[in-house]
Every structure is written in C-alpha cells, then in structure tokens.
C-alpha cells in the first residue's frame, strides 16, 4: 500500500477568505458548507482547515481546527468544502451561529491525509462523534479504488451520530453504536471489533474520533496485521507546525520516542507508532 507523502510542509496550504453557503443543524452538530474556490483541488480526506473565529474584535486569538468533511469541485458554487462542527466552546459556537453569506478566514488544506491504497483492499472506517465527518469523503475515494468499505460509527447518544443519507451510499455496510442505546446497538465501536476484522478480512482501519477510541482500537488490533491509520485530535495553537503545542509521543524506526507535531506529521498517523500510554507525559530523555 503506497501512502502519499507531502514534499515540503503544508505545501498546498493557502490562507484565504471563504463564504458560508449554508449552515444547518444536524443532530447535535452543524453542517457548514463553505465556498472556497480552487483550493478544494488540493484537499484530501484527513486534511483539516484552520479557521479564524470571533470576527475583527475577537478576544479569541487562535484559529480553530476542523476536519474537512468533504469537498466538491463542481458544486453550483464552484469549489465547496463541508465541515461538521460540534458547538463546544465559544469559537465553535460562533461558527455554528454564522448566517449564510458570512465571510471567514481559513487556512487549508493542512496536515497529513489518509493513505489511499493503490489496490482494492478491505477497509473498515471507524468514526466517533463528529469524527465520522472525514470518513464519508474517504469512503468515496476508496470506492473509486474498488475497495470494500465497511463503517462503524459510535457516539454517546444518537444525536451525536453523524451519518448523512448520501454518505451511506458510499459504504458497503454501516453499523451504529450508542452508549445509551438511543440509536443502533448499545455499546461502543470497539465492542466486536476483532470479530469484524476477522470475519471481513479487514486490511486497513481508518479511524477518526476521541483519543480514547483511537487508543482502544490500536490496542485491540496490535495482535493482528491490520494497519491502523487514525486521525488524532490534539489541542493546536497554530495548526501549521510553528508552536510545538500539539505534540504526541511517537516511536520512530530505531525505537526511540519523540514528541511529534500532530498538526504537520498528523492528524493522520499510524496508530501503532503512537505511544498512547505516554500521551500527556514526557518520555525519558534519549541520547
């Protein structure tokens, strides 16, 4: 399986204005469609966008990161980009409150993308909460490569499952879990993961969601041959690699752990290289 590697850092990233085409509530989230123009051509599933929030006189000085849910080159608006935003704190709530026609300042595409296989493989896509957002765009691409695409989505409650009708068409199967049982099966996406992996001969897992979920998946599949590409979510001050706030402990080829920037060496990472047990700690000093 070949993975696309970026030449220089964020070599396709641009800073530009975008116009809100629509902003709709979908369950607990907002589906925000942006008119962004030609930059969509550079966006790959897994990339994210960094958005300035709060307007000109905002006390919020940092951008907010959102996974690019899907892009369309030839929508009626020219290039458009879809985001699925949870109204969490003041920045995301501001975004969710933007009326149609608002202009915002974006930097995109940022970060690494999911590796796309050159051969038809069996892929399992696992999303937690709004983590499902980039997975539908990914599913579309995998389908064009003739992959078999199964999907598991999980959330605490049904309103936090994001699974648009159109999206469902790109997957061969979709299974939903909620912790309170209000939608799909009661439980978590990891419930019968190993069985699913075995029964469906899964080659690659693509995941996006809370760190706890990514860690659990990594641990479950560590005894298998399955490749686990996960999109991580660490607090980011800059999103472009200059501040060193977003680091994760990652093992390199020689077995040494280093603190890697999840904004430029992620968000998509090989789950098996992340030292999940060291997240929030400092590894022993090497050398």
């Amino acid at each position, binding site marked *: 399986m070949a993975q696309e590697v970026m030449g220089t850092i964020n070599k396709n990233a641009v800073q530009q204005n975008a116009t809100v085409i629509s902003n709709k509530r979908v369950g607990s989230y907002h589906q925000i469609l942006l008119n962004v123009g030609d930059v969509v051509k550079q966006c790959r599933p897994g990339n994210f966008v960094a958005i300035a929030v709060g307007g000109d006189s905002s006390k919020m000085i940092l951008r907010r990161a959102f996974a690019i849910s899907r892009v369309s080159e030839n929508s009626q608006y020219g290039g458009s980009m879809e985001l699925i935003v949870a109204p969490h704190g003041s920045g995301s709530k501001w975004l969710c409150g933007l009326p149609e026609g608002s202009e915002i300042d974006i930097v995109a595409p940022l970060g690494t993308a999911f590796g796309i296989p050159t051969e038809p493989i069996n892929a399992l896509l696992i999303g937690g909460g709004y983590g499902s957002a980039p997975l539908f765009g990914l599913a579309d691409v995998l389908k064009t490569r003739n992959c078999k695409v199964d999907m598991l989505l999980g959330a605490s409650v049904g309103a936090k499952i994001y699974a648009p009708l159109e999206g469902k068409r790109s997957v061969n199967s979709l299974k939903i879990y909620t912790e309170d049982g209000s939608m799909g099966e009661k439980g978590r996406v990891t419930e019968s993961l190993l069985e699913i992996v075995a029964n469906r001969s899964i080659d690659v897992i693509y995941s996006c969601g809370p760190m706890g979920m990514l860690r659990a998946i990594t641990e479950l599949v560590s005894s298998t041959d399955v490749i686990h590409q996960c999109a991580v979510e660490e607090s980011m001050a800059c999103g472009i690699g200059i501040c060193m*706030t977003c680091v994760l402990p990652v093992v390199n080829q020689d077995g040494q752990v280093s603190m890697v920037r999840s904004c430029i060496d992620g968000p998509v990472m090989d789950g098996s290289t992340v030292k999940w047990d060291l997240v929030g700690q400092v590894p022993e000093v090497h050398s």
Partner: protein
Amino acid sequence: MNMPVDMSTTLGNAWFPTPIFTASGCASSGKELSQFFPLKDVGAIVTKSVMSKPRHGRPTPRMAETPSGMLNSIGLQGPGIDSFLANDVPWLLEQKARVVVSIAGETIEEYATLARKLRSVSGISAVEVNISCPNVENRGLVFACDPDASRRVIDGVRKTIGGELPIIAKLSPDVTNLPEIARGVVDAGADALALINTVLGMVINVDTMKPHLGGKTGGLSGPAIKPVAVRAIYQVHAALPEVPILGMGGVSSGRDAFELILAGASAVSVGTASFGNPSALVKIQEELREILSAKGFATLKQAVGYAHREENA
C-alpha cells in the same frame, strides 16, 4: 502621502533590512512559515531557543487560550544544537534569510558551550540569549529573575563568543526591577536587549479542577500583554537610551509595532500573532511602513524612542 521609508535597522553591529522579526519559539526554524512568505522578505528569523542536547519538553496540554492571549508551556523541546546547526541554519541561509539564533541553557556553562558552537558558524546575524530558563544550579530560579545569574550568563557567552557576533539578552518582565537586570547584562557585554519574554500565568481547567497545562504554569503571550511590553521597553529605553532593544509582546498590527518602536524598540519580534495569521509578519511590516510614511518619518530610526522626546520642556 506615500514617502518611501528606510526601514533598515541595527542591533549591535548587525544590520537588518526591516525591523520585523519572528519571535523565538513562534516560528520553529522557519521552514513551516516559508509556505506563506519568503523568509528573506522580513527582517530576521529568530529561531526557537536551542539547548545543547535534544529535549522532549513538557507534557501536554501545552497551551491554553486566554482572553486576547494564550499560555504556553513547551519546555524548550528541540533537536539540540548540533542537529540545529547541521540542518536548520544552512537551510535558512540558503533562503537568504537573516538568522538570529536563540540559545537556552540550564547552567552558566551550558550557555558558554552553546556560544562556543555558534562561534564557528558563519552567516548568523546575532545570538539571542534566552535567560528565562530555570537555573538547575540554583533551586531552579530563573536566570532572568536573578541579576547576578543574568550577568554571569551573558559574561560567559561574551567571553566565549568574542567580539564579533552581537549578543541580544532576552529578559523576563516578571521582576521587580527590570532596568537593574538590563543594566547588569549590558555591563556584562550584551549589545542589545530583547523585551519581553512571556509573563508567568496559569489557567485552571474547571472540568478537571486542576491546572490545565501539563507544566502547571505557562507563559502568557499575545495582545493581552502588549501594555506590559510597551511599559518594559519604555522603562528600559529611558534608563539605557544607547542600548538597542528588540521589542516584542502582543504585536499583531503595524500600529502595535509602531507603539513598541515609539517606546524605544529598534526592531520588533512577532510571536503569537503568527499562530492566528501565518502571514502576520508581512502584513505587520507593510502596515508599519505605511504608518511611518504617513507620519512623515523618512527612516525607521527616527521613530525609535520618539515617545520619550520632551517638547518645549
């Protein structure tokens, strides 16, 4: 009004075509920003403080946004001086960028060691000595908070590095008497001063009900601290008018940079603003040029410290 303005400036014997620099720790080693503007277009790239050995830094979370500011506790994660000199400096020089190397140590000896390694590198414009680091030989007391330790660090660097490379001593505002510390490091051989490093702060996470940052305390930066930076620069320029200052703290517009220059800064580093706007430096530089021109300054140097002038007095 659109008079051309001579934007060039000097810090010690180092010359820079414009006064807008990156701030240490807010531009990594420059590569990441080069996607957004050519590095040679700004005054200088001040690199992330480098130590003698590779460092992992502090545990995450390493940042918290605060009103008009942010806290960081990176803990000087970095590759160590050898890797830095082998990889980052040559690349920057290839870009034709002016390079100011920031160094940091845990002992007076470590600073001297770093200086020794720098001495042999050609093409560097200046060295910024970040003394806002805990002194492991003195109960972790930050060098910059101790007049004597500050002096000794700069003295050690000066003796090691010789007279060629200008030394910019970077001070912390978290002291009772900043001009005293400034005077000490200048006496010890600093050619210029960098003001200000971040202000010590803390955020408590109301969900966990514990300090939010992995390192508990962190450094406050961004527009919130701009009034502290202006005050610090004004105070130190008043006390030491001959000593050039590399000003910084909350600059996010040409007006902000102009304010620091009027207070006494000969050049201005832009830190946190780049996080919100990757092309902040070029925007600020253009805005500053326009303001200087509109105010009738033919050269940047005329504006440095202009707020101190006495009219009819």
